[in-house]
């Protein structure tokens, strides 16, 4: 347990913008100890905030009010892999990538692959219902969790779901996935594994501008072709990635699609040919395939480490996670880029274009720019996405970052229905309070919270 300010400092923040010191940080070794932590916190009248690797982008692991952080870092066992049932049983502190690494010996893999997968944990992935590039074909984490063991708000350890499907009673597993630690603390997960594909083809299509690349992506989906992954990188990103890695992307391209298809050889060759011809029809300058595994790995390394590469441009950045209907991507991107330009920020777009999950990244320098200005531009970006029929978040979660914007999407009855589910698990609201739901003052001491709340309430109408 840590309580000295110098020890709790690194638990004040995640990969987003909000920060606040917790009262204390506990790092238990197993579910039984987590249960006792929750009971002790309850006796002490403080809230509990679960935390994995701290790579979250929406402030979900930040302690609001009087709260103790429960870190799952020591629960790192991969308990078993059943190659016949295709299930891995793992503890929540296991890094995402370690699951696929362990499953590989059985010809299997764990499909969700957030860019943070080398460090982000299964527990955190479950909390935010993480996605990643390959969610396009395989779906998000919720599609890959068969069961969870969880410590409930009263300290009870309960299991929901199972390896066998459709067990009697309410299916709470998909409610728990994506609940950002507000229903309990996951202490074990049964994960679905999938067979490794026979063939993988990765290629890059370069376009003169963002719009033509976005049109090609929309056309591919509209044709009913769903690649394993389809990512867009804009010019700012391409240049940053070139500067950071030895990838030699063409700097004359205005945008690039990184496309991967997986399956039987017959399927990948057919899909590749169709995708290439559609890219060319939309004006692609060049389409080139990764010839070797090394080249493929390099392209994905460039994609997954793209954000660190972009950090060379400006010291600070703000990443968004809105999702829009896929056919709206070209128009929404135009609008988003116009917002950034109007506010004078450099913008980079590197995102999951295949499922409409935008990640516009505002680049700025807090020595000269104000956080208020960044948040104003961010709220405008969210508004454009919502008005296009979209969602606030595709894979990062709502947390503290976007909770005040929830009523842009849902009416009071809709949010109250979610609160009913919450209350069934945690009637006293001791599990990760102040997250997901708008209103409430538990996090009001955080300055960025006040700014966002003002924007959410001021810009709607």
């Amino acid at each position, binding site marked *: 347990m840590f309580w000295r300010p110098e020890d709790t400092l690194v638990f004040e923040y995640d990969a987003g913008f909000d920060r606040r010191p917790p009262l204390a940080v506990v790092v238990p070794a197993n579910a039984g100890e987590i249960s006792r932590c929750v009971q002790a916190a309850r006796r002490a009248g403080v809230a509990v905030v679960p935390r994995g690797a701290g790579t979250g982008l929406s402030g979900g692991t930040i302690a609001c009010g009087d709260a103790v952080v429960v870190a799952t870092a020591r629960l790192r066992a991969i308990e078993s892999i*059943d190659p*016949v*049932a295709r*299930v891995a049983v793992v503890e929540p502190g296991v890094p995402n990538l370690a699951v696929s690494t362990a499953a590989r010996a059985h010809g299997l893999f764990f499909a969700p692959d957030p860019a943070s997968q080398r460090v982000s944990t299964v527990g955190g992935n479950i909390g935010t*219902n993480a*996605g990643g590039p390959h*969610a396009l074909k395989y*779906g*998000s984490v*919720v*599609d890959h969790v068969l069961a969870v063991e969880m410590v409930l708000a009263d300290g*009870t350890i*309960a*299991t*929901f779901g*199972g*390896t*066998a*499907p*459709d067990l*009697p*009673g*309410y*299916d709470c597993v998909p*409610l728990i996935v*994506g*609940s950002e630690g507000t229903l309990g603390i996951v202490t074990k997960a049964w994960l679905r594994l999938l067979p490794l594909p026979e063939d993988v083809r990765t290629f890059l299509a370069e376009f003169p501008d963002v719009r033509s690349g976005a049109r090609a992506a929309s056309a591919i989906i509209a044709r*009913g072709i769903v690649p394993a992954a389809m990512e867009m990188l804009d010019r700012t990103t391409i240049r940053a990635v070139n500067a950071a890695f030895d990838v030699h992307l063409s700097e004359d391209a205005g945008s690039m699609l990184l496309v991967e298809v997986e*399956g*039987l050889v*017959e*399927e990948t060759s*057919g899909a590749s040919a169709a995708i290439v011809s559609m890219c060319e029809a939309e004006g692609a300058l060049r389409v080139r395939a990764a010839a070797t595994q090394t080249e493929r790995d390099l392209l994905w390394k460039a994609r997954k480490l793209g954000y660190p590469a972009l950090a060379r441009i400006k010291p600070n950045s703000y990443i968004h996670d809105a*999702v*829009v*209907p*896929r056919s709206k991507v070209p128009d929404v991107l135009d609008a988003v880029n116009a917002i950034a330009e109007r506010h004078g920020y450099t913008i980079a777009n590197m995102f999951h274009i295949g*499922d*409409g999950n935008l990640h516009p990244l505002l680049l700025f320098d807090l020595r000269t720019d104000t956080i208020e200005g960044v948040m104003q531009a961010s709220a405008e970006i969210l508004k454009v996405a919502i008005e296009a029929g*979209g*969602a606030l*978040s*595709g*894979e*990062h979660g*709502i947390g503290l970052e976007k909770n005040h914007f929830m009523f842009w*999407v*849902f*009416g009071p009855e*809709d*949010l*109250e*229905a*979610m609160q*009913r*589910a919450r*209350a*069934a698990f945690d*009637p006293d609201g001791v599990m990760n309070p102040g997250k*997901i739901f708008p209103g409430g003052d538990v996090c009001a001491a955080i300055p960025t919270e006040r700014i966002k709340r003002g924007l959410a309430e001021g810009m709607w109408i």
Partner: protein
Amino acid sequence: MDLSALAIDGLVPSRSETPASAEEVVTLVSAAHRDQTAAVIFGGGTRISVGDAPSRYDVAIDMRGVRGVVEHSPADLVCIVRAGTTLADLAAELARHGQRWPVDVPDPERATVGGTIASAATGPSRLRHQHVRDWVIGCEAVLGDGTRVRAGGRVVKNVTGYDLTRLYSGSFGTLAVLVELSLKLVAIDERARTLAAHGDAASLAALGNTLRATLPLDGLVLATGDAAGGGAALTVRVAGGQAAVERVMREIRARGAFAEIDDAAWHALVSLPARTDRVARAAVRPGSESEVLSGSAVAHIGTGSAFVFGERSNGQISALRGRCEATGGALILERASTEQRRALGTWGAPRVPAAIARSLKARFDPHGVLAPGRLPG
């Protein structure tokens, strides 16, 4: 209207209602909440038998009037559909744009989208496409107190608040009445073919598990006894692009004496669990489905579901339930005599902590008017 056709385990409602809109559903459920009368929600009735007898049953609400595709956005691979639409009507509408909802369940001409989701209906296609809940991205629903709510949205990736749509999935109309669903779609496969081989059950089971381990398949069904027309039969469904389908068929044929059967035979096999009077579903570890087969039965290999058909004694059912539960599974009496259901219960050992199940029910349906008693909790 012959209300006895709406009887559940001998209980006959005093009236039936056929709302034509979400507003009418709100009115009906609000009245039930106010008057504390109990309603059972009907779709096509293919799975209305799944569940314990309601503890009270005043009105049957037939959702088939709340039907039709509200919006199909082919370029987004998404559609919005009213809950009472049958799967066949949905398929016909989507096929105009070469798309489909990849959920294959018994009797698509009768089964509705809402009922399929509310009852977590299953079919062999889960081998490739997984659970029905994974193909629903949002909904509009009426809670037990008449509150009309939305959850999720119309985008394919979404973590904007709790995923209540998937909580309602498999809740058998006890938490909310689904009125409208947003669905995720796929393109119709270029080819879909079916192969079948006959032989002894044990070697076909081994063959089925080998095929599952080595080839991407759409469905894999091992039938025994009357369900196989005697003996045992392994049926394999393959779908995809023409070249891929031809190759997979070649590889299947190289492993056994398979002959092609037509789509109608495949659909009849998929529909067996809705066309048989006595059905118990075994939920087991994927890969072990064929271990629970006896007499007339089908195993949907790789999905974790097997169906045992025909009259079985209470002792036989209890023994099978014991075996399933001992390995973390369950045995659900989907269609049984009223006597057997009363004696053994539909569900077996409850899995969701009782306090959570009761609390969910009490909060989403405060007066207990939606199919009370049908689901544990």
